[in-house]
């Protein structure tokens, strides 16, 4: 391209960029991708990093992290996680120790920790005056010293991760510490990136050149800068000065509406392409379907621009791979890569970049009531806003706030008190002439005077689903402070707007719902989870079902592995044709998710801990729903499943009232009646699409069970263990869900059910759920354990 257009300017803008974690090394021309090996880390410290959910490669991180946390016997080891953060993230929820620190102070915290590590005997070369500048801090000294001691004790087996939104010097310091702690090559490796274009928050060249009238034609490949560029670029205004502009995009979005031309881009599932994973492994993107709306692949557009030739993306990709795979026997090797999905052995070799320590300086003054800090974070569901037109994601409750279809400024209870803001009060944020109105949401565990503003909402041209949902927080996002910022004024407008949320009550009220213990207590009493509840002998007046022949299905969910991300909810929704009901219905408490994630706070109001529990139909053996249905629409089957007969259901809702878990979902309206043809095509043909007036709920993915049974029958064998994977189990990044035949004593699910932490929720009511949970274990530092769980 550069050859074809020598005068062209190439720029890559990324609203949520992780550039700072990979480009602070010596020699600015290269960037290095850090690869975290959580599975090898005994002690992990996250500095404002939500590595388990909203950051790149989070699914990989979550899987590896869960591996290091997995325990099956009291003798097993598990890792320990310290989190220092301003907002409350899913990662913070998994922490054994969590410290609330404003994002602007994370650097000072890292400096204080470095000094403490040095004091505890670690060799770190620090600039002079470092101790003078950062030694006198107000962080919890006992916490830092216990953390440092823990890190030093686990040298070579610990890992410090910094959030990608933190300034570059923090990452330099984090890297220094990782080197000093011997993590390089063990828990942290790097692969060299060969980006031609580095994504950046900061590259404002296009906007400034356009304003000066120096750009005659602009081609925007993907992205949506008219919506998400920093407000001071004034991208929309800049675009007007450009004579010809083209937007190649999957959606007719805010940017497409301003450009002269819009080229419909085919979706990744409709086009050929290739990509590299974080570790450099090359893979081929293969389409699942021909472009539905005649879109063109990105590769095709680039090829056309560079060569002037129109070429099918398939041919372009093959051409590229001919150079990668070499000439000999290309066809076979190409097919092998297509079959496997990636090219084995193509990962970059691990490199150790040289560290630099610039003149680093960190703010040490905390934000207060007059100048609260603002932290822009990507939405866990919509990310930077690109997924705003996806109803599944809009309706997925935020794992922490449980808000759906809305974003809100997240503030701590104390901040709300001192700023005199009520929950749901529409609050105005002003910076120069830029204004944002957004409801506030009081979130326990948020650092005081640190306000999290989730990105990705308030789209105006996202589509039928995503338009005008929530508030557009880009409205006050400036290029010089894209992540951690301040405003000139914040005040409540007195108007109340309660965003739709799926959980009103955050406390377990002392009930044994999510059962947890520290590792120490678990070792002392491995049966603690079951012993938390006393009940009379559980006897039923009805005879037991006979399962001596055939299968008997069951599920176990390991709360120690679950991070609460909600991937299971979406997996289930897509598998089981669960309808999207919209903001109004969600705010009325009518969301249809068959599998929901309950989130509770434990501990104090200001600084609690967070625990998650996925809850779907528990497929009770003595199901309270079955006996009360007047028309026998919900019945037990021979394999222990509690089935819904949709056609038989008349919708008395008694089953739902009598369900102690409240996992049944009722079609209050005809939610599926007005589906467009394209949405109809997206429905799973193996699952009935439900209509108005009937009850539905988790079926343990009955259609998958049937398919596996049919296959086994044809092949004259029994269904093998692991052959049936439920949609939630498949989607879970941490493998927290186990499903199978509990008649089979060899099966994985049976093995899990025998783990001493296994308990059944509300078993004291003799409902005998087939779904059970493995109690959550935390692993606090004994040096900090006498304190309250978290010091803030």
């Amino acid at each position, binding site marked *: 391209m550069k050859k074809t257009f020598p005068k062209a300017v190439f720029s890559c803008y990324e609203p949520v960029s992780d550039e700072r974690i990979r480009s602070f090394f010596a020699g600015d021309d290269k960037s290095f991708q850090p690869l975290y090996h959580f599975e090898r880390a005994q002690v992990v410290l996250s500095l404002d990093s939500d590595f388990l959910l909203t950051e790149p490669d989070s699914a990989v991180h979550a899987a590896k992290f869960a591996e290091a946390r997995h325990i099956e016997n009291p003798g097993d080891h598990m890792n320990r996680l310290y989190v220092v953060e301003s907002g409350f993230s899913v990662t913070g929820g998994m922490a054994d120790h969590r410290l609330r620190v404003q994002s602007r102070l994370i650097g000072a915290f890292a400096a204080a920790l470095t000094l403490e590590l040095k004091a505890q005997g670690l060799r770190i070369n620090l600039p002079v005056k470092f101790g003078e500048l950062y030694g006198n801090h107000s962080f919890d000294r006992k916490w830092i010293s216990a953390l440092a001691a823990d890190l030093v004790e686990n040298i070579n087996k610990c890992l410090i991760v910094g959030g990608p939104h933190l300034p570059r010097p923090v990452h330099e310091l984090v890297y220094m510490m990782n080197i000093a702690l011997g993590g390089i090559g063990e828990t942290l490796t790097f692969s060299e990136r060969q980006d031609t274009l580095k994504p950046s928050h900061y590259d404002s060249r296009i906007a400034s050149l356009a304003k000066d009238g120096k750009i005659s034609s602009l081609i925007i490949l993907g992205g949506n800068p008219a919506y998400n560029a920093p407000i001071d670029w004034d991208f929309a205004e800049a675009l007007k000065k450009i004579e010809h502009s083209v937007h190649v995009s999957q959606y007719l979005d805010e940017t497409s509406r301003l450009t002269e031309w819009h080229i419909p881009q085919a979706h990744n599932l409709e086009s050929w392409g290739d990509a590299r994973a974080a570790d450099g492994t090359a893979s081929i993107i293969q389409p699942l379907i021909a472009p539905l709306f005649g879109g063109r692949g990105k590769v095709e557009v680039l090829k056309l621009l560079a060569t002037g030739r129109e070429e099918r993306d398939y041919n372009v990709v093959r051409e590229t791979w001919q150079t990668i795979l070499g000439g000999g026997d290309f066809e076979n090797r190409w097919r092998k890569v297509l079959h496997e999905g990636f090219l084995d052995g193509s990962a970059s070799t691990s490199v150790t970049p040289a560290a630099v320590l610039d003149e680093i300086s960190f703010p040490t003054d905390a934000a207060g009531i007059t100048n609260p800090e603002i932290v822009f974070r990507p939405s866990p569901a919509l990310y930077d806003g690109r997924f705003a037109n996806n109803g599944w994601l809009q309706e997925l409750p935020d794992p922490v706030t449980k808000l759906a279809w809305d974003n809100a400024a997240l503030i701590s209870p104390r901040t709300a008190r001192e700023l005199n803001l009520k929950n749901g009060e529409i609050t105005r944020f002003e910076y120069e002439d830029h204004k944002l109105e957004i409801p506030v949401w009081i979130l326990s565990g948020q650092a005081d005077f640190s306000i999290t503003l989730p990105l990705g909402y308030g789209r105006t041209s996202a589509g039928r689903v995503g338009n005008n949902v929530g508030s557009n927080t880009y409205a006050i996002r400036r290029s010089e402070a894209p992540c951690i910022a301040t405003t000139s004024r914040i005040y409540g407008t007195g108007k109340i707007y309660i965003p739709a949320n799926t959980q009103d009550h955050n406390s377990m009220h002392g009930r044994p719902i999510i059962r947890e213990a520290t590792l120490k207590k678990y070792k002392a009493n491995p049966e603690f989870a079951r012993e938390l509840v006393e009940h009379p002998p559980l006897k039923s007046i009805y005879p037991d079902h006979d399962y001596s022949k055939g299968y008997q299905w069951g599920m176990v969910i390991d709360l120690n592995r679950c991070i609460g991300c909600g991937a299971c909810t979406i997996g289930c929704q897509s598998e089981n044709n669960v309808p999207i009901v919209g903001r109004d219905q969600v705010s009325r*408490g009518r969301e249809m998710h068959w599998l929901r994630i309950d989130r509770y706070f434990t501990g104090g109001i200001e600084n609690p801990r967070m625990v998650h529990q996925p809850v779907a139909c528990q497929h009770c053996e003595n199901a309270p729903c079955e006996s009360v249905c007047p028309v026998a629409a919900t019945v037990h089957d021979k394999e222990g499943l509690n089935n819904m007969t949709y056609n038989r259901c008349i919708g008395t809702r008694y089953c739902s009232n009598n369900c102690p878990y409240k996992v049944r979902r009722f079609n209050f309206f005809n939610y599926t009646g007005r589906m467009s043809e394209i949405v109809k095509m997206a429905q799973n043909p193996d699952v009935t699409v439900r209509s108005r007036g009937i009850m539905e709920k988790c079926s343990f993915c009955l259609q998958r069970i049937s398919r596996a049974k049919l296959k086994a029958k044809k092949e004259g064998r029994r269904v093998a263990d692991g052959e049936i994977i439920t949609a939630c189990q498949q989607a879970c990044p941490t493998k927290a869900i186990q499903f199978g035949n509990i008649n089979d004593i060899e099966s994985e699910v049976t093995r899990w059910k025998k783990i001493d932490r296994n308990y059944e929720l*509300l078993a004291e009511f003799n409902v005998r759920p087939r779904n059970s949970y493995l109690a959550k274990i935390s692993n606090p530092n004994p040096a900090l354990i006498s304190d309250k769980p978290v010091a803030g």
Partner: protein
Amino acid sequence: MSGETAHIEPPLAGGVQTLGSITEKISSIAERKAPRLWYLAFGAAFSLLLVLIGSIGYLVFEGVGIWGLNNPVGWGWAIINFVWWVGIGHAGTLISAILFLLRQRWRTSINRFAEAMTLFAVCCALIFPAIHVGRIWVVYWMFPIPNQMAMWPNFRSPLLWDVFAVSTYFTASLLFWFTGLIPDLATFRDRAEARIKKIIFGVLALGWRGGNRQWKHYELAYLLLAGISTPLVLSVHSVVSTDFAVSILPGWHTTIFPPYFVAGAIFSGFAMVVTLTTIARKIFGLQDIITINHMEKMNKVMLLTGMMVGYAYSMEFFIAWYSGNIYEQFAFINRAFGQYAWAYWIMISCNVFVPQLFWFKKLRRSIPVMFTASILINIGMWFERFVIVVSSLAQDFLPANWDYYSPTIWDISTFVGSFGLFFTLFLLFIRFLPMISMAEVKGVLPQADVHYHEAGGERG
């Protein structure tokens, strides 16, 4: 009833009544032109009935989502209204059947009235379970109708018991009411001047001539029907209570429910009878037939049953504490002090405190006091069902599910509309049928005593 007993028991009809005056007074209500007030009332009631029809129409068209229901609150106003109307429908058959069996002859002047009220209240009640289901068009699947799909209802479900209990109760009440009407219908037939009336009342009177054998059979039939109806009074609300008691929900799962519900039903039923009779006796000048003594007796029943429900309220708390079950304990503490505490205290004030007024004879015999109290009791009994249905569902086992339920305009319009149905039927009843049992009132007049003409003679 004369002689000695007359000193203890005041006469059951006031003024100077003869057998003829009773016939004249009661028949003439249906025979003369209706008063303007009747037309006004009928207009208002019929308008409300149209509101009901409109609300149900929209419900069928759109779905039960138009109501305020949510997850976890799967039942709301519809079920509350159902239980409330069924409760009101209790006094009628109770007054008729049980008081008949117990030879409480003071019932005669109000029994017809109360029976009609029962029937119309049960009509209103029956609407709600039918329309509250998700798929109204297949609600008949609740009945055991043999069909080619080999589907059969689930007899373990209390909702099915409900179907049988309430429909049996309705059928028995209807027969009981109609049987009681036969002699009076014959009177109407005999007095009718228009040919159409002669035919209609002639058919309805089933050939009644008032002969000795007819009376013998009639009284035996009536006695048998009373005997059949009596257990039904107790069973129907016991069964309705099992809709809740059979579940596992804290606040519903309670063995006290059947007697507690029956007491509450009688309580609210009498309250409704008092409300209606105070109006009717005023409008139609029936003070001599439905005397203040009758009203006082009903107030005494309300005092008694009010205290029974008060006892049940406190006993629920005791059991919740005594059970040691944290879910149960929470459910009850939450009722009194949680998000629905306002509803709970309306219930307690109306159902427990208000009836205490009737300890005082003066208040017991004051029409304005009893009218106000009866309305408050009806409100209180509605809130009792609200508290039971909603507060238990809204906050049950897992706090993550908890939600707040509030009704929509359609919940309210359907409930208000059900009064339209009730009053339309009631006004048609008092317009066209004998609202007081002439034959039975005559039976309690002194003239009916076989020894009436022997001054000072004992009753035979």
